[in-house]
């Protein structure tokens, strides 16, 4: 591990990817993640890695698809409208079972929207915009260090699952500087060693054509495709059991529970301290994995809780998962900003208190 260093989020995530074994990065400029392609273009060649500035986000994700199918460890990043262009590739990679790690530095929409932080890509990340039945594990850090650790671990996880894994950050986490400790470099196999670890990869079969590999997505016979998709979902069911991560505090004895992820969870923690000073006991649920969503944790909420609030930088997207977890046991309300304004802890505290009073707390 490195000593503690002060790094900008985007650069720290890039370094974590390289340390996690990424040697292939394909990117296209889009704010607020431009420090990542810049960092990778500069640093990857120092590690015998490769950078391509692609012609578009579609080009970038297809390069990732190719390099991933060839057995390389790939990291690819963008921001909201660019992630929209990734969707074709994400669906393909899930279908063909090709690993890659995708990081979004989320901004505002819809459309070109704005470049300030947003969380209105929750559906885009957790439900996906690509076609067909597939799932992508999504993890949302609320500090630069947590993002570093997630990117690093996602490299291994993506290879193990043979599926894309997404890290959901926003413009605030990407742009802010925080002290971080960097994990150690993992060893990276040479091109002629790839098949040992990834016997499915496209490497050229050498002398024995019985070892010929193909990476495909078309399954034109309905029965074959149905069976294949069921196979994918067996994998996803297992992932749902193993990958669910959540941070909570005080939910077993709360007047009110706030659910928030990423940047907003960070601000919410301070708002909760303010509310406590006013005599309102507030618990926090911070989903760390957005898919799989930690539905079960909602069973632990104290029956005396009056209201559960979803706090988000969107018009209310995660709130749908919150409502699934709550299953009508408590009233659910939304505290939100959209368009790029981040609420202060005071704003969250005041709005939460108002909701609490309206509900009769």
């Amino acid at each position, binding site marked *: 591990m490195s000593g503690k260093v002060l790094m900008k989020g985007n650069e720290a995530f890039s370094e974590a990817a390289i340390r996690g074994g990424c040697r*292939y990065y*394909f990117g296209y400029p889009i704010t607020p993640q431009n420090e990542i392609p810049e960092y990778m273009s500069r640093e990857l060649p120092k590690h015998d890695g*490769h950078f*391509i500035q*692609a*012609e*578009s986000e*579609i*080009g*970038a994700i*297809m*390069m*990732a*698809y*190719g*390099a*991933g*199918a*060839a*057995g*390389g460890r*790939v990291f690819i990043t963008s921001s909201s409208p660019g992630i929209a262009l990734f969707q*074709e*590739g994400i669906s*393909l990679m899930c279908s*063909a079972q090709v690993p890659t790690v995708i990081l979004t530095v989320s901004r505002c929409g819809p459309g070109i929207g704005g470049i300030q932080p947003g969380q209105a890509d929750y559906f885009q990340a957790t439900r996906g915009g690509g076609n067909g039945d597939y799932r992508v594990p999504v993890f949302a850090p609320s500090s630069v260090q947590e993002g570093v650790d997630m990117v690093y671990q996602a490299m291994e996880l993506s290879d193990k699952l043979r599926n894309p894994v997404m890290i959901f950050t926003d413009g605030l986490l990407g742009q802010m500087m925080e002290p971080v400790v960097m994990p150690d470099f993992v060893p990276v196999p040479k*091109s002629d060693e*790839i098949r040992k670890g990834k016997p499915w990869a*496209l*490497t*050229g*079969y*050498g*002398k*024995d*054509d019985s070892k*010929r*590999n*193909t*990476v*495909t*997505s*078309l399954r034109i016979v309905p029965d074959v495709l149905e069976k294949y998709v069921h196979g994918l979902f067996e994998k996803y069911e297992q992932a749902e059991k193993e990958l669910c991560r959540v941070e909570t505090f005080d939910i077993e004895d709360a007047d009110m529970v706030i659910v928030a992820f990423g940047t907003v969870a960070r601000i919410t923690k301070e708002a909760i301290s303010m509310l406590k000073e006013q005599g309102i006991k507030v618990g926090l649920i911070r989903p760390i994995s957005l898919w799989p969503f930690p539905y079960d944790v909602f069973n632990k909420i104290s029956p005396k809780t009056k209201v559960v609030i979803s706090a988000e930088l969107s018009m209310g997207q995660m709130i749908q998962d919150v409502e699934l977890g709550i299953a009508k046991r408590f009233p659910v309300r939304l505290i939100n900003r959209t368009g790029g304004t981040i609420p202060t802890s005071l704003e969250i505290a005041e709005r939460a208190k108002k909701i609490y009073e309206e509900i009769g707390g």
Partner: protein
Amino acid sequence: MLQPVFEYTKGMLPVETNYCPGCTHGISHRLIMEVLEEMDMLGNTIGCGPIGCSVMAHRFMNVDMMECAHGRAPAIASGIRRVHPDKLIFTYQGDGDLASIGTAEFIHAAARGEHITTFFINNAIYGMTGGQMAPTTLIGQKSTTTQTGRTVAQAGAPMRVCELVSTLDGAVYVERVALNSPANINKAKKAVKRAFDVQEKKLGFSMIEFVSTCPTNWGLSPLEAIDFLNEKMLPYYPLGVFRSPEGGQ
């Protein structure tokens, strides 16, 4: 003892293809695979297939293969190239795939001078989807989306891909061949070999355009389709070397 005078290339797998009678995909598949076998490179090659009639190419060609989404093969091949610097890597793409939905990926792979070879099958029509207009459909040619014949006013003029890509310095070897006669098929095979040689020497991007037939969607017999190729296609798509490492034709 009898010596074999002809053997089917090990580069083609012993399976039936899905191609129609008179379609030239089988010829271009076989030429590429014969060259790779002669170079003893079948086991050191990675192919990138398209969407279109040849979406199943990975079932016929005996090399490691990737089935690429519509038009994305050159970007995918660029990614594979970074992981495997010493393999032969090719894309195999039709006119809709390469010259319409995948124009950006194709042009930029060429502009970067990617060390890959693109085989471009130009039969002036969408095959698998049932005969719609392609970017290379000729003026006056009927398709299911130009039912009274393509007009410049409605759809613009057909794209000449070799001429277009030859303006890029990264495209170091560009040749258009036709699969209309034994002599031209032999020439096409030489062009395939030359393109792979250029790639092996890491000189840059190489592309061979095969002027091909689609009797089914042209509504012609296989022989009439050859006549159409000779009389209509070749005047608009002249054969030749558009760019080579030695310079010019």
